[in-house]
Protein backbone atom coordinates (compact mmCIF):
# COMPACT_ATOMS: atom_id res chain seq x y z
CA UNK A 1 0.00 0.00 0.00
CA UNK A 2 2.83 2.39 0.76
CA UNK A 3 4.44 1.73 -2.60
CA UNK A 4 1.12 2.29 -4.25
CA UNK A 5 0.63 5.52 -2.33
CA UNK A 6 4.04 6.87 -3.27
CA UNK A 7 3.75 6.00 -6.94
CA UNK A 8 0.24 7.39 -7.05
CA UNK A 9 1.40 10.64 -5.47
CA UNK A 10 4.12 11.09 -8.05
CA UNK A 11 1.68 10.35 -10.83
CA UNK A 12 -0.89 12.74 -9.49
CA UNK A 13 1.76 15.44 -9.36
CA UNK A 14 2.63 14.78 -12.98
CA UNK A 15 -0.93 14.65 -14.22
CA UNK A 16 -1.72 18.16 -13.17
CA UNK A 17 1.28 20.26 -12.29
CA UNK A 18 0.45 23.14 -10.00
CA UNK A 19 1.30 26.56 -11.37
CA UNK A 20 1.86 28.84 -8.39
CA UNK A 21 3.85 28.34 -5.19
CA UNK A 22 0.67 28.28 -3.17
CA UNK A 23 -0.73 25.43 -5.21
CA UNK A 24 2.58 23.66 -5.10
CA UNK A 25 2.76 23.84 -1.31
CA UNK A 26 -0.83 22.70 -0.93
CA UNK A 27 -0.41 19.83 -3.34
CA UNK A 28 2.70 18.61 -1.65
CA UNK A 29 1.08 18.95 1.75
CA UNK A 30 -1.83 16.79 0.69
CA UNK A 31 0.42 14.25 -0.97
CA UNK A 32 2.58 14.01 2.13
CA UNK A 33 -0.62 13.55 4.11
CA UNK A 34 -1.55 10.70 1.81
CA UNK A 35 1.79 9.01 2.28
CA UNK A 36 1.55 9.58 6.02
CA UNK A 37 -1.93 8.17 6.27
CA UNK A 38 -1.01 5.12 4.24
CA UNK A 39 2.06 4.60 6.39
CA UNK A 40 -0.18 4.76 9.40
CA UNK A 41 -2.55 2.23 7.93
CA UNK A 42 0.03 -0.16 6.61
CA UNK A 43 2.43 -0.13 9.54
CA UNK A 44 -0.06 0.63 12.31
CA UNK A 45 1.96 3.62 13.40
CA UNK A 46 0.43 6.10 15.83
CA UNK A 47 -2.32 3.80 16.89
CA UNK A 48 -3.86 6.61 18.88
CA UNK A 49 -4.47 8.78 15.88
CA UNK A 50 -8.19 9.23 16.21
CA UNK A 51 -9.64 11.82 13.92
CA UNK A 52 -13.12 10.83 14.91
CA UNK A 53 -12.46 11.21 18.64
CA UNK A 54 -13.37 14.87 19.00
CA UNK A 55 -16.29 14.49 16.62
CA UNK A 56 -17.52 11.56 18.61
CA UNK A 57 -17.20 13.50 21.82
CA UNK A 58 -19.20 16.50 20.66
CA UNK A 59 -21.67 15.17 18.17
CA UNK A 60 -21.96 11.67 19.52
CA UNK A 61 -23.39 12.97 22.76
CA UNK A 62 -25.66 15.37 20.85
CA UNK A 63 -27.05 12.53 18.79
CA UNK A 64 -27.57 10.45 21.87
CA UNK A 65 -29.76 13.26 23.17
CA UNK A 66 -31.82 13.07 19.99
CA UNK A 67 -32.29 9.35 20.40
CA UNK A 68 -33.19 9.81 24.04
CA UNK A 69 -35.82 12.42 23.24
CA UNK A 70 -37.39 10.13 20.71
Amino acid sequence: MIAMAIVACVVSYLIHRPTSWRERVLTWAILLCVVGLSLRTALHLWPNLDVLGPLDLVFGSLTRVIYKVL
Partner: protein
Amino acid sequence: MEKERISSTQLVVLLIWTTLGTGIVTIPYVLGLFTVRDGWISTLLSSAGGLLVTAVAWLYIRMLEMRRLTEALLRTFGPVVGRALGLWVVFWIWISNCTVLRELELFVGNTILPRTPEYVIGFLASTTFAYAVYMGVEVLARTGEFILPLSAVVGPVLIMLSLQYMDIHEMMPVLADGWSPVLRGAVVPALAYGMEFGIVLQYLHAVNHRQSVLGSLVMSTGLVSVVLTIVVAITVGVTGHSVSYLNYPVLEMVRTIRVGRFLERIDTLYVMAVMSTIFIKLGAFHYAWCEGMKDIFGLSSHRTLAVPGALSVWAGSLAVFAKAGTVEHFIITDVPSYFVFTVLVIPAVTALAAWWKQRRTHRGAPRRNVA
Protein backbone atom coordinates in the same frame (compact mmCIF):
# COMPACT_ATOMS: atom_id res chain seq x y z
CA MET B 1 -13.63 28.55 -21.47
CA GLU B 2 -17.37 28.73 -21.29
CA LYS B 3 -18.77 28.23 -17.83
CA GLU B 4 -19.82 24.70 -17.21
CA ARG B 5 -23.50 24.27 -16.58
CA ILE B 6 -25.68 21.41 -15.51
CA SER B 7 -29.39 21.16 -16.13
CA SER B 8 -31.95 20.58 -13.43
CA THR B 9 -32.49 17.02 -14.62
CA GLN B 10 -28.83 16.36 -14.18
CA LEU B 11 -28.91 17.95 -10.74
CA VAL B 12 -31.79 15.70 -9.70
CA VAL B 13 -29.96 12.64 -10.97
CA LEU B 14 -26.79 13.67 -9.21
CA LEU B 15 -28.62 14.26 -5.93
CA ILE B 16 -30.47 10.99 -6.18
CA TRP B 17 -27.27 9.04 -6.64
CA THR B 18 -25.62 11.07 -3.92
CA THR B 19 -28.15 9.82 -1.40
CA LEU B 20 -29.07 6.45 -2.80
CA GLY B 21 -25.53 5.35 -3.57
CA THR B 22 -24.76 4.18 -0.07
CA GLY B 23 -28.24 4.78 1.31
CA ILE B 24 -29.56 1.66 -0.31
CA VAL B 25 -26.77 -0.34 1.28
CA THR B 26 -26.76 1.11 4.75
CA ILE B 27 -30.23 2.47 5.51
CA PRO B 28 -32.00 -0.92 5.69
CA TYR B 29 -29.25 -2.11 8.02
CA VAL B 30 -29.55 0.94 10.25
CA LEU B 31 -33.32 0.65 10.28
CA GLY B 32 -33.03 -2.98 11.25
CA LEU B 33 -31.34 -1.89 14.45
CA PHE B 34 -34.40 0.08 15.51
CA THR B 35 -37.44 -1.40 13.86
CA VAL B 36 -38.22 -4.14 11.41
CA ARG B 37 -41.92 -4.22 10.67
CA ASP B 38 -42.34 -0.46 10.52
CA GLY B 39 -39.13 0.38 8.70
CA TRP B 40 -41.07 1.68 5.73
CA ILE B 41 -42.64 4.39 7.87
CA SER B 42 -39.21 5.54 8.94
CA THR B 43 -38.04 5.92 5.36
CA LEU B 44 -41.17 7.88 4.51
CA LEU B 45 -40.40 10.16 7.44
CA SER B 46 -36.84 10.54 6.24
CA SER B 47 -38.00 12.97 3.56
CA ALA B 48 -38.17 15.47 6.41
CA GLY B 49 -34.38 15.74 6.20
CA GLY B 50 -34.45 16.67 2.53
CA LEU B 51 -37.21 19.17 3.15
CA LEU B 52 -35.22 20.81 5.94
CA VAL B 53 -32.29 21.15 3.57
CA THR B 54 -34.61 22.65 0.99
CA ALA B 55 -35.83 25.21 3.47
CA VAL B 56 -32.30 26.23 4.39
CA ALA B 57 -31.32 26.31 0.73
CA TRP B 58 -34.26 28.62 0.06
CA LEU B 59 -33.15 31.00 2.78
CA TYR B 60 -29.56 30.78 1.61
CA ILE B 61 -30.29 31.48 -2.04
CA ARG B 62 -32.53 34.38 -1.08
CA MET B 63 -29.74 36.01 0.82
CA LEU B 64 -26.64 34.95 -1.03
CA GLU B 65 -27.78 34.38 -4.61
CA MET B 66 -26.19 31.49 -6.46
CA ARG B 67 -22.88 31.49 -4.66
CA ARG B 68 -21.10 28.39 -3.50
CA LEU B 69 -21.18 27.82 0.23
CA THR B 70 -17.43 28.15 0.66
CA GLU B 71 -17.36 31.28 -1.48
CA ALA B 72 -20.21 32.77 0.51
CA LEU B 73 -18.51 31.98 3.80
CA LEU B 74 -15.43 33.92 2.73
CA ARG B 75 -17.49 36.88 1.57
CA THR B 76 -19.68 37.00 4.62
CA PHE B 77 -17.31 36.28 7.44
CA GLY B 78 -14.09 37.67 6.07
CA PRO B 79 -10.84 35.87 5.36
CA VAL B 80 -10.11 34.48 8.83
CA VAL B 81 -13.42 33.31 10.23
CA GLY B 82 -14.67 32.53 6.76
CA ARG B 83 -11.65 30.38 6.00
CA ALA B 84 -12.00 28.55 9.28
CA LEU B 85 -15.66 27.81 8.62
CA GLY B 86 -14.81 26.91 5.04
CA LEU B 87 -12.20 24.47 6.26
CA TRP B 88 -14.80 22.98 8.58
CA VAL B 89 -17.15 22.44 5.61
CA VAL B 90 -14.38 21.04 3.44
CA PHE B 91 -13.38 18.70 6.21
CA TRP B 92 -16.99 17.60 6.53
CA ILE B 93 -17.05 16.75 2.83
CA TRP B 94 -13.75 14.95 3.09
CA ILE B 95 -14.76 12.82 6.03
CA SER B 96 -18.13 12.01 4.45
CA ASN B 97 -16.33 10.90 1.35
CA CYS B 98 -13.97 8.78 3.44
CA THR B 99 -17.00 7.16 5.03
CA VAL B 100 -18.56 6.46 1.68
CA LEU B 101 -15.39 5.00 0.24
CA ARG B 102 -14.90 2.87 3.33
CA GLU B 103 -18.45 1.59 3.02
CA LEU B 104 -17.74 0.70 -0.59
CA GLU B 105 -14.54 -1.10 0.32
CA LEU B 106 -16.29 -3.05 3.04
CA PHE B 107 -19.24 -3.86 0.83
CA VAL B 108 -17.24 -5.10 -2.11
CA GLY B 109 -14.68 -6.82 0.08
CA ASN B 110 -17.36 -8.52 2.12
CA THR B 111 -19.38 -9.73 -0.80
CA ILE B 112 -17.34 -10.57 -3.85
CA LEU B 113 -13.64 -9.94 -3.39
CA PRO B 114 -12.95 -11.30 0.09
CA ARG B 115 -9.26 -11.89 -0.41
CA THR B 116 -8.33 -8.77 -2.34
CA PRO B 117 -6.82 -6.15 -0.02
CA GLU B 118 -9.24 -3.37 0.72
CA TYR B 119 -6.81 -0.69 -0.33
CA VAL B 120 -6.77 -2.08 -3.85
CA ILE B 121 -10.54 -1.91 -4.08
CA GLY B 122 -10.41 1.59 -2.67
CA PHE B 123 -7.75 2.56 -5.15
CA LEU B 124 -9.80 1.32 -8.08
CA ALA B 125 -12.71 3.40 -6.85
CA SER B 126 -10.55 6.48 -6.36
CA THR B 127 -9.24 6.36 -9.91
CA THR B 128 -12.81 6.51 -11.18
CA PHE B 129 -13.94 9.52 -9.22
CA ALA B 130 -10.61 11.31 -9.58
CA TYR B 131 -10.92 11.04 -13.35
CA ALA B 132 -14.56 12.08 -13.39
CA VAL B 133 -13.94 15.10 -11.16
CA TYR B 134 -10.87 16.05 -13.14
CA MET B 135 -13.01 16.21 -16.26
CA GLY B 136 -15.40 18.65 -14.59
CA VAL B 137 -18.89 18.91 -13.26
CA GLU B 138 -20.58 18.46 -16.62
CA VAL B 139 -18.91 15.15 -17.18
CA LEU B 140 -19.82 14.04 -13.69
CA ALA B 141 -23.44 14.95 -14.20
CA ARG B 142 -23.57 13.26 -17.58
CA THR B 143 -22.04 10.11 -16.21
CA GLY B 144 -24.81 10.05 -13.63
CA GLU B 145 -27.31 10.49 -16.40
CA PHE B 146 -25.77 7.67 -18.35
CA ILE B 147 -25.84 5.29 -15.41
CA LEU B 148 -29.45 6.17 -14.57
CA PRO B 149 -31.20 4.17 -17.31
CA LEU B 150 -28.98 1.17 -16.60
CA SER B 151 -29.94 1.16 -12.94
CA ALA B 152 -33.50 2.05 -13.80
CA VAL B 153 -33.64 -1.24 -15.67
CA VAL B 154 -31.66 -3.41 -13.29
CA GLY B 155 -33.33 -2.14 -10.12
CA PRO B 156 -36.96 -2.80 -11.03
CA VAL B 157 -36.07 -6.18 -12.52
CA LEU B 158 -34.42 -7.26 -9.28
CA ILE B 159 -37.37 -5.93 -7.30
CA MET B 160 -39.88 -7.70 -9.52
CA LEU B 161 -37.98 -10.95 -9.24
CA SER B 162 -37.86 -10.77 -5.48
CA LEU B 163 -41.53 -9.85 -5.16
CA GLN B 164 -42.45 -13.52 -5.39
CA TYR B 165 -40.85 -14.10 -2.01
CA MET B 166 -42.49 -11.13 -0.42
CA ASP B 167 -44.88 -11.77 2.42
CA ILE B 168 -46.89 -8.72 3.36
CA HIS B 169 -47.65 -10.27 6.74
CA GLU B 170 -44.08 -9.64 7.78
CA MET B 171 -45.05 -6.01 8.12
CA MET B 172 -48.10 -6.68 10.29
CA PRO B 173 -49.15 -5.50 12.76
CA VAL B 174 -48.37 -1.90 11.92
CA LEU B 175 -46.91 0.16 14.74
CA ALA B 176 -47.16 -2.70 17.22
CA ASP B 177 -44.30 -1.21 19.22
CA GLY B 178 -45.45 2.38 19.08
CA TRP B 179 -43.84 5.35 17.41
CA SER B 180 -40.62 5.53 19.35
CA PRO B 181 -38.61 2.90 17.38
CA VAL B 182 -39.96 4.30 14.13
CA LEU B 183 -38.83 7.82 14.97
CA ARG B 184 -35.48 6.64 16.20
CA GLY B 185 -35.05 4.65 13.04
CA ALA B 186 -35.86 7.74 11.01
CA VAL B 187 -33.02 9.71 12.59
CA VAL B 188 -30.24 8.33 10.44
CA PRO B 189 -32.08 8.34 7.11
CA ALA B 190 -33.34 11.86 7.69
CA LEU B 191 -30.44 13.53 9.42
CA ALA B 192 -27.52 11.68 7.87
CA TYR B 193 -28.64 10.73 4.39
CA GLY B 194 -31.17 13.53 4.04
CA MET B 195 -28.49 16.05 4.94
CA GLU B 196 -26.34 14.80 2.09
CA PHE B 197 -28.62 16.81 -0.17
CA GLY B 198 -26.90 19.80 1.39
CA ILE B 199 -24.00 19.16 -0.96
CA VAL B 200 -26.10 21.05 -3.48
CA LEU B 201 -24.89 24.31 -1.92
CA GLN B 202 -21.47 23.61 -3.41
CA TYR B 203 -23.01 23.21 -6.86
CA LEU B 204 -24.98 26.43 -7.00
CA HIS B 205 -22.54 28.12 -9.37
CA ALA B 206 -23.09 25.43 -11.95
CA VAL B 207 -26.89 25.40 -11.92
CA ASN B 208 -28.91 27.41 -14.35
CA HIS B 209 -31.85 28.77 -12.38
CA ARG B 210 -32.37 29.32 -8.71
CA GLN B 211 -35.90 27.90 -8.89
CA SER B 212 -34.52 24.71 -10.35
CA VAL B 213 -32.36 24.15 -7.28
CA LEU B 214 -35.27 24.08 -4.88
CA GLY B 215 -37.42 22.12 -7.32
CA SER B 216 -34.64 19.59 -7.79
CA LEU B 217 -34.18 19.26 -4.04
CA VAL B 218 -37.86 18.60 -3.41
CA MET B 219 -38.06 16.23 -6.34
CA SER B 220 -35.01 14.21 -5.43
CA THR B 221 -36.09 14.07 -1.79
CA GLY B 222 -39.43 12.70 -2.85
CA LEU B 223 -37.97 10.21 -5.29
CA VAL B 224 -35.35 9.00 -2.87
CA SER B 225 -37.78 8.46 -0.03
CA VAL B 226 -40.21 6.65 -2.30
CA VAL B 227 -37.50 4.39 -3.67
CA LEU B 228 -36.14 3.73 -0.20
CA THR B 229 -39.60 2.97 1.13
CA ILE B 230 -40.25 0.48 -1.63
CA VAL B 231 -36.87 -1.14 -1.14
CA VAL B 232 -37.21 -1.33 2.62
CA ALA B 233 -40.76 -2.67 2.44
CA ILE B 234 -39.75 -5.40 0.02
CA THR B 235 -36.61 -6.24 1.93
CA VAL B 236 -38.57 -6.65 5.14
CA GLY B 237 -41.26 -8.58 3.31
CA VAL B 238 -38.72 -10.97 1.82
CA THR B 239 -36.18 -11.47 4.56
CA GLY B 240 -38.46 -10.99 7.55
CA HIS B 241 -36.91 -10.50 10.92
CA SER B 242 -33.44 -11.38 9.63
CA VAL B 243 -33.13 -7.68 8.72
CA SER B 244 -32.27 -6.96 12.33
CA TYR B 245 -29.04 -8.93 12.15
CA LEU B 246 -28.05 -8.82 8.49
CA ASN B 247 -25.36 -6.40 7.42
CA TYR B 248 -26.66 -5.92 3.90
CA PRO B 249 -30.37 -6.73 3.92
CA VAL B 250 -31.01 -5.60 0.35
CA LEU B 251 -28.21 -7.84 -0.83
CA GLU B 252 -29.87 -10.73 0.97
CA MET B 253 -33.12 -9.90 -0.72
CA VAL B 254 -31.40 -10.19 -4.08
CA ARG B 255 -29.62 -13.33 -3.00
CA THR B 256 -32.90 -15.13 -2.43
CA ILE B 257 -33.99 -14.74 -6.02
CA ARG B 258 -34.24 -18.05 -7.78
CA VAL B 259 -36.12 -18.56 -11.01
CA GLY B 260 -35.95 -22.16 -12.05
CA ARG B 261 -32.50 -23.63 -12.22
CA PHE B 262 -31.15 -20.95 -14.48
CA LEU B 263 -31.51 -17.59 -12.84
CA GLU B 264 -30.11 -17.47 -9.36
CA ARG B 265 -27.23 -16.00 -7.37
CA ILE B 266 -27.49 -12.70 -9.23
CA ASP B 267 -26.40 -10.70 -6.22
CA THR B 268 -23.08 -9.92 -7.89
CA LEU B 269 -24.97 -7.87 -10.44
CA TYR B 270 -26.53 -5.92 -7.61
CA VAL B 271 -23.11 -5.28 -6.12
CA MET B 272 -21.93 -4.01 -9.48
CA ALA B 273 -24.91 -1.68 -9.81
CA VAL B 274 -24.36 -0.33 -6.30
CA MET B 275 -20.68 0.14 -7.04
CA SER B 276 -21.28 2.30 -10.07
CA THR B 277 -23.75 4.48 -8.20
CA ILE B 278 -21.34 4.90 -5.32
CA PHE B 279 -18.72 6.02 -7.83
CA ILE B 280 -21.07 8.85 -8.75
CA LYS B 281 -21.66 9.69 -5.12
CA LEU B 282 -17.94 9.83 -4.45
CA GLY B 283 -17.47 12.02 -7.48
CA ALA B 284 -20.23 14.38 -6.42
CA PHE B 285 -18.72 14.84 -2.97
CA HIS B 286 -15.21 15.09 -4.28
CA TYR B 287 -16.11 17.77 -6.78
CA ALA B 288 -17.67 19.78 -3.96
CA TRP B 289 -14.48 19.31 -1.98
CA CYS B 290 -12.29 20.47 -4.86
CA GLU B 291 -14.40 23.59 -5.40
CA GLY B 292 -14.27 24.30 -1.68
CA MET B 293 -10.50 24.00 -1.58
CA LYS B 294 -10.29 26.22 -4.63
CA ASP B 295 -12.22 28.96 -2.82
CA ILE B 296 -10.37 28.67 0.44
CA PHE B 297 -6.88 28.61 -0.95
CA GLY B 298 -7.50 30.68 -4.05
CA LEU B 299 -6.45 27.99 -6.51
CA SER B 300 -6.63 28.44 -10.24
CA SER B 301 -8.90 25.53 -10.96
CA HIS B 302 -10.68 22.70 -9.22
CA ARG B 303 -8.44 20.37 -11.18
CA THR B 304 -5.40 21.26 -9.13
CA LEU B 305 -6.40 19.10 -6.23
CA ALA B 306 -8.66 16.62 -8.01
CA VAL B 307 -6.15 13.81 -8.06
CA PRO B 308 -4.24 14.47 -4.81
CA GLY B 309 -7.59 14.96 -3.08
CA ALA B 310 -8.87 11.64 -4.34
CA LEU B 311 -5.74 10.01 -3.03
CA SER B 312 -6.24 11.64 0.34
CA VAL B 313 -9.76 10.26 0.46
CA TRP B 314 -8.36 6.85 -0.40
CA ALA B 315 -5.71 6.97 2.31
CA GLY B 316 -8.06 8.65 4.74
CA SER B 317 -10.81 6.10 4.38
CA LEU B 318 -8.48 3.39 5.55
CA ALA B 319 -6.70 5.44 8.19
CA VAL B 320 -9.73 7.03 9.80
CA PHE B 321 -11.97 3.99 9.75
CA ALA B 322 -9.40 1.35 10.52
CA LYS B 323 -11.77 -0.95 12.37
CA ALA B 324 -14.82 -2.37 10.63
CA GLY B 325 -17.30 -1.29 13.27
CA THR B 326 -16.17 2.34 13.22
CA VAL B 327 -18.15 3.20 10.14
CA GLU B 328 -21.47 2.06 11.54
CA HIS B 329 -20.73 3.63 14.88
CA PHE B 330 -19.87 6.90 13.19
CA ILE B 331 -22.98 6.86 11.03
CA ILE B 332 -25.36 6.00 13.81
CA THR B 333 -24.04 8.05 16.70
CA ASP B 334 -22.04 10.95 15.30
CA VAL B 335 -23.24 11.71 11.84
CA PRO B 336 -26.80 12.89 12.52
CA SER B 337 -25.94 15.88 14.65
CA TYR B 338 -22.64 16.50 12.87
CA PHE B 339 -24.37 16.76 9.53
CA VAL B 340 -27.20 18.84 10.92
CA PHE B 341 -24.70 21.30 12.32
CA THR B 342 -22.72 21.50 9.10
CA VAL B 343 -25.48 21.42 6.53
CA LEU B 344 -28.27 23.21 8.31
CA VAL B 345 -26.75 25.46 10.93
CA ILE B 346 -23.75 26.84 9.04
CA PRO B 347 -25.59 27.87 5.86
CA ALA B 348 -28.49 29.25 7.86
CA VAL B 349 -26.15 31.31 10.02
CA THR B 350 -24.32 32.49 6.93
CA ALA B 351 -27.56 33.56 5.33
CA LEU B 352 -28.61 35.41 8.46
CA ALA B 353 -25.23 37.09 8.74
CA ALA B 354 -25.44 38.18 5.13
CA TRP B 355 -28.88 39.57 5.81
CA TRP B 356 -27.63 41.45 8.82
CA LYS B 357 -24.70 42.85 6.91
CA GLN B 358 -26.96 43.94 4.12
CA ARG B 359 -29.22 45.73 6.56
CA ARG B 360 -26.34 47.48 8.20
CA THR B 361 -24.98 48.84 4.93
CA HIS B 362 -28.41 49.97 3.84
CA ARG B 363 -29.25 51.59 7.14
CA GLY B 364 -30.35 55.17 6.58
CA ALA B 365 -30.60 54.71 2.85
CA PRO B 366 -34.08 54.23 1.40
CA ARG B 367 -35.09 50.62 1.62
CA ARG B 368 -34.59 48.72 -1.60
CA ASN B 369 -36.32 45.66 -2.76
CA VAL B 370 -33.64 43.06 -2.40
CA ALA B 371 -35.42 40.06 -3.68
